[in-house]
């Protein structure tokens, strides 16, 4: 809760900072604010990935899967339909708008499942409060991170770095309307595994994006 609150505060701050401070068309000021925005977002994605990793490991401890779940071929994350670059070169070759879209898609896709996961965890008595808080935090973070990335996109579009083709993500739920039922079939453990992987993707993509757009500020 605290983490999500902090994220929200920071994002609000960025919203405040972005508009009034750099009203004049100074490129340096805008770029610096964009770099700062990127840094904040990347920090939160890293934080999110860390939490997902902890949850996943904890889940493994508690439930001790009999074997390595990764061996199960049938396991399929509900976000597998989203085409994501699976390597550095693929990610670098991808257009900025596409990469941004992928990030947003991923974040949008995980908002509801995580919420429901948290709801199911709260009812599990063998899952301690710590993990329950973490699952709630995780779902909040996904929500806030999506907002943050959207702000980054808006700023990039304002600066003309990317085109306005990304704007049609205002209603992300439309993308997954057809797939919305898939995640209900996933087990909790698979869900955690998939989210852990996807949060790592988001983190990597954001970093690549930043170092491509504003490389001079800490890459």
């Amino acid at each position, binding site marked *: 809760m605290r983490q999500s609150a902090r994220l929200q505060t920071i994002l609000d701050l960025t919203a405040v900072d972005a508009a009034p401070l750099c009203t004049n068309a100074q490129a340096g000021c805008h770029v610096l604010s964009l770099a700062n925005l990127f840094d904040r977002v990347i920090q939160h994605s890293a934080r999110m990935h860390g939490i997902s990793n902890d949850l996943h490991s904890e889940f*493994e401890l508690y439930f*001790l899967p009999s074997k390595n779940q990764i061996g199960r*071929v049938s396991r399929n994350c509900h976000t597998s339909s989203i085409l994501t670059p*699976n*390597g*550095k070169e693929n990610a670098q070759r991808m257009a900025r708008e596409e990469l941004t879209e992928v990030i947003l898609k991923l974040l949008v896709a995980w908002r509801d499942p995580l919420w429901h996961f948290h709801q199911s965890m709260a009812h599990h008595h063998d899952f301690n409060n710590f993990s329950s808080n973490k699952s709630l935090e995780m779902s909040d973070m996904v929500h806030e991170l999506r907002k943050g990335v959207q702000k980054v996109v808006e700023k990039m579009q304002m600066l003309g770095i990317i085109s306005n083709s990304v704007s049609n993500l205002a209603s992300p739920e439309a993308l997954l309307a057809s797939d919305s039922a898939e995640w209900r079939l996933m087990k909790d453990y698979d869900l955690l595994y998939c989210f852990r992987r996807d949060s790592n993707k988001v983190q990597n993509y954001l970093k*690549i994006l930043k*170092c491509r757009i504003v490389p001079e500020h800490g890459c």
Partner: protein
Amino acid sequence: MADSSPSTNLLLLLLISSLDWLPTPGSAFLIDRDHMTSSAPLEPHFTECISREQETFRCWWSPGSYHNLSSSGALRVFYLKKESPTSEWKECPEYIHSNRECFFDVNHTSIWVPYCMQLRGENVTYFNEDDCFTVENIVRPDPPVSLSWTLLNISPSGLSYDVMVNWEPPPSADVDAGWMRIEYETQYRERNTTNWEALEVQPHTQQTVYGLHIGKEYEMHIRCRMPAFTKFGEFSDSIFIEVTEIPTKESTIPLTLILVLGILCILILIMLVVLTQQHRLMMVLLPPVPAPKIKGIDSELLKKGKLDELNFILTGGGMGGLPTYAPDFYQDEPWVEFIEVDGEDGDSGEKEDNRASDTQRLLGLPHPVSHHMNMGCSNAISFPDDDSGRASCYDPDLPDQDTLMLMATLLPGQPEDEEASFDVEERAPASSERSLVQTQTGGPQTWVNTDFYAQVSNVMPSGGVVLSPGQQLRIQESTLATEEETQKGKEGEESKETEEEKQKELQFQLLVVDPEGSGYTTESNVRQISTHPQPVETKPAATMEDNQSPYIHPDSPQSQFFAPVADYTVVQELDSHHSLLLNPPPASPPLPACHSTLSKPPCLWATLPPTCWGTSHREVTMPSDL
């Protein structure tokens, strides 16, 4: 195998979780083989798959106990990339048989995609589901490069210091593109110890290490890890850090050098001065110690046991006079100050003038021209004026002489000489004869031989002060007798005197202030003191039996004889003639009135009422006004 492995895996997971080691998916094959019991034959398996930069990876396998499969080509590696449900097993893209390694290059590597590895023999497939992984989970970054350290500070005590260690991220990791983020763990230890001290993992390429000890050598190395992952890479090459106490030593070396050089220079200067015998400088550097040196007398004689020879010389025996014939010692020592033994002529001193005694100076009298002195005492000892002492003439070898004995006292401060002088003094009272040193010429008598301290024995009408030295006074017997008579008669008179007469005589009387102050009163003196308020004559106890009055007659016979006086008296009054009145009678009533008459003493000081003081003051100052 298939039956036992799930339970075994469960057991292993339990064990590892209890050890707080979180297993990551994709690395299970690493655990399995380590804990397998050796009873079952070890089948070919993969030992490890590692990615260094999250772009490529490689896998190593082992034939296990199946040594017949150890030859290259007997086993083949197949992998499955689960990108789609329709994926197939493919063979290793690149073999490195020497290492039993399968290398997957960039084209064959996909991140976030599950891989499964398989070993196939001729007809056998060795597959373990645990040998599946995703590449991001098997990343072990390369160690950092270009390690260096700088000294931050040293503690005030000089015992510990802090360093800053800097390094570069591994070149294989593409940190600039943001593809990999790396955390670093620094470890250090003392040179010959076994335990490493691990610092907290942090993402920056520098690390501050606090609290290292001066003089000890430290070893440091660093390893890398991806954040939120658990696998560390290899350690970097060690760097060695050591700080000794050189900085403090450097500051003290110049100080010691300067001290040594300074001392050497001073010593050289002194040696030069001594060698070149610059007398002036030598006097400054090595001032001479004054030694007893009398002109014409060898200093050897001044040593103990040779007093007879000294006295012989001093009295002029043999050679007939010191200054003329005595060899002149110490001629070449210019800083020697000589004591002039011969005081006969006033200006015969080579070095110092013959100075008058204190009595003469007080009285303002000319120097004594001649006196009836024995030859022993004809050589009046005269001292330089700056010497506070004076000597009396003494000649112990001539006890039968009536003349004064001049005591040869040398400069004070000579222990040997003081003994001689003490001997002389003791012998003086033994001699029964004393003669008063008088001058033939008119005028008041003058003292030639006086003691160190003289008491005022009489105040003359003219205003002069007659001094009587403490011990070695010499008075003629004739005068002694008359003195005593008059003294006694005077004493008888005094008892009948009226106050005014007393007042008169007060002017001419010596006043004893404190009889018990001087230690020289005898019984007779005490009696006199107690019965009469008059001053009591005090004289040295030793001389009392010699019928000597230790005072000297003033010049005129009409001078009153005075009671013996103490060595020290206090001036109580000053009469109109500016004569010192040493002790007015305590029972004297205050004057009825203050008149400016000669008979009555002026009113002075605290003994008289203030009114008188004012009057007398006027009286006193009147002459000056006129």
